[in-house]
């Protein structure tokens, strides 16, 4: 179903907005024009090349948990403006705009949910709220999630989608890295499992705290994962950036993550791993071995 050839119609990206209801989407990986419905029903994965689009926390929740089992925690927390930060645009204006645009109060949704036989403490970051940045609210919600999990002997699962610490909250944001890591120290000390799932993109301050502290670290294919952005690295060091740098596959090759899992296999993989990590429940029966998946082809 190749509707357009690759090079002739590069202007299609601009025109896509004019299409009625945005029915078609150009895949940034294989450049094919794909029927939007096909992507949505396919869990946000390109049917041509298995490129993983960013999806909302709601879509992720539906993919991973048993319907109706989610109980949200700390839904009432909102960002304040402790620095009264004014740049080109004031932080408060940014917050208002982001709330309206994303329909979210901040960049993470936390709660308790069932996944197969397991009840887990689950945090899902959403990139659509200020680039999934971590300020006081994200830090506080993650910390409470972990603290509640420790108190109730639950596993913690956090899906990251983030550009790092939120600079509008200055040092308060930086300190969320320490705060969340402290909570994880106690959770780990209690012998409880924590699985970190890295989605596109997972970078900077969140990576340098809870996202890299999982007993198991899983990445979705071809996600951008790292500490410093490629542009910063290039500008600061003038080093050559290797091919595929800071992508999931690069991370796997360098031994920095446990496995890459396609979105459609994520729930089953997590349930199986939770079985191995829990002391009481044996692994869920299944015949399929979970093996490393191949990455989508790009460029």
């Amino acid at each position, binding site marked *: 179903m190749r509707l357009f050839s690759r090079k002739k119609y590069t202007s299609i990206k601009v025109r896509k907005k004019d299409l009625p209801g945005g029915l078609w989407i150009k895949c940034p990986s294989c450049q094919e024009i794909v029927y939007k419905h096909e992507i949505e029903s396919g869990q946000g994965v390109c049917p041509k090349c298995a490129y993983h689009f960013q999806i909302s926390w709601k879509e992720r929740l539906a993919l991973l948990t048993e319907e109706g089992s989610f109980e949200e925690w700390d839904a009432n*927390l909102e960002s304040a403006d402790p620095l009264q930060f004014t*740049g080109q645009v004031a932080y408060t204006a940014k917050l208002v705009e982001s709330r309206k645009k994303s329909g979210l109060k901040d960049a993470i949704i936390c709660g308790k949910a069932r996944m197969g036989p397991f009840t887990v403490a689950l945090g899902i970051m959403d990139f659509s709220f200020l680039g999934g940045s971590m300020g*006081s609210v994200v830090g506080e919600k993650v910390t409470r999630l972990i603290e509640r999990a420790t108190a109730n002997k639950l596993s913690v699962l956090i899906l990251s989608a983030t550009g790092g610490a939120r600079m509008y909250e200055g040092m308060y944001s930086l300190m969320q890295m320490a*705060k969340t*890591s402290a909570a994880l*120290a106690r959770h780990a000390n209690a012998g409880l499992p924590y699985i970190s799932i890295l989605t596109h993109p997972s970078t900077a301050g969140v990576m340098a705290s809870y996202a*890299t502290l999982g007993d198991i670290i899983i990445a979705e294919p071809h996600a951008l994962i790292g500490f410093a952005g490629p542009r910063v690295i290039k500008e600061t060091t003038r080093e050559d950036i290797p091919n595929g740098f800071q992508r999931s596959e690069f991370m796997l090759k360098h031994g920095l993550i446990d496995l890459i899992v396609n979105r459609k296999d994520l729930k089953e993989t997590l349930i199986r791993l939770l079985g191995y990590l829990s002391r009481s429940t044996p692994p869920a029966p299944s015949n399929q071995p979970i093996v490393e998946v191949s990455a989508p082809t790009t460029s």
Partner: protein
Amino acid sequence: MAHHSLSFEKPILELETKLKELRAFSEAQDIDVSRELSDLERKIVETKRQVFKNLTAWDEVQLARHPQRPYTLDYIGEICRDFVELHGDRHYGDDRAIVGGFAMLDTEAVMIIGTQKGRDVKSNVERNFGMAYPEGYRKALRLMKLAAKFGRPIVVMIDTAGAYPGVGSEERQIAEAIAMNLREAFLLPVPIIVTVIGEGGSGGALGIGVGDRILILEHSYYSVISPEGCAAILWRDRAFASKAAAALKLTSRDLLKAGLVDEIIPEPLGGAHTDPKGMAADLRRRLLYHLRELKQYSLDELLDRRYRKFRAMGVIRAESPSAGELTIKNEE
């Protein structure tokens, strides 16, 4: 001393040069100018006071980066004896941007760890401008665990623009190295005193920055992002760094007000670089004071306080706090 000066230091340095000339003149000619000299000295102090009373956040950043500012090894040389430097992370290499080792601070045997800048091209190459790779953070954690094993308190000095943003850093997972230090620091059963002695550059600073006391020298800064980096993102122009510095609330006074540091250690008038020995003596005094105070806590109490200290950081708004919720720190 005059060959590196900040713009706001110029009037002070001019007067100091004049003083030196007058002194030389009076000695050479054997003329009594004691009245003129004392007038000039008074004027210098007055000018310093004026200049340092009106420093902007950006001025403070410049002072924190002053090329003559004392660095970690300068303080180690001044405040302790019998320093034994220990090297390497036992896995990959010895990152010279972070130094550490046992030392005697008065009668206290401690582990001292700090980021180390260079002063000239050669030493800056060796020290990578004080920007550590993952192996630096892993060395720091190894030494902290060593200290903990033998019950030695840990003294940390922070002076870094940030962790090194390079290909090698990413290949060896600098994010994980920092995260692991953050988590493990909450389990170390010995007192930890952290002092920001110059630049507190983001995650690279925090990576060795978890402790029971966070002290900061007066003209240091500690920030989530460099003012230049912030300006590049929010103003799309690094030239707005001074505005970004003010917006980020990164000065020692801002941080004390926010409750993110415990104490400002005042610097000699004119900055630490104008009297390194005096600065070191004050730092030593404050370190010993806090060390002795922290030693009074039981280990459980110490770890619990450390947890609660960082647990309380953050300002949020609860729209409708529901019953049974954990305590919420509301906006002051």
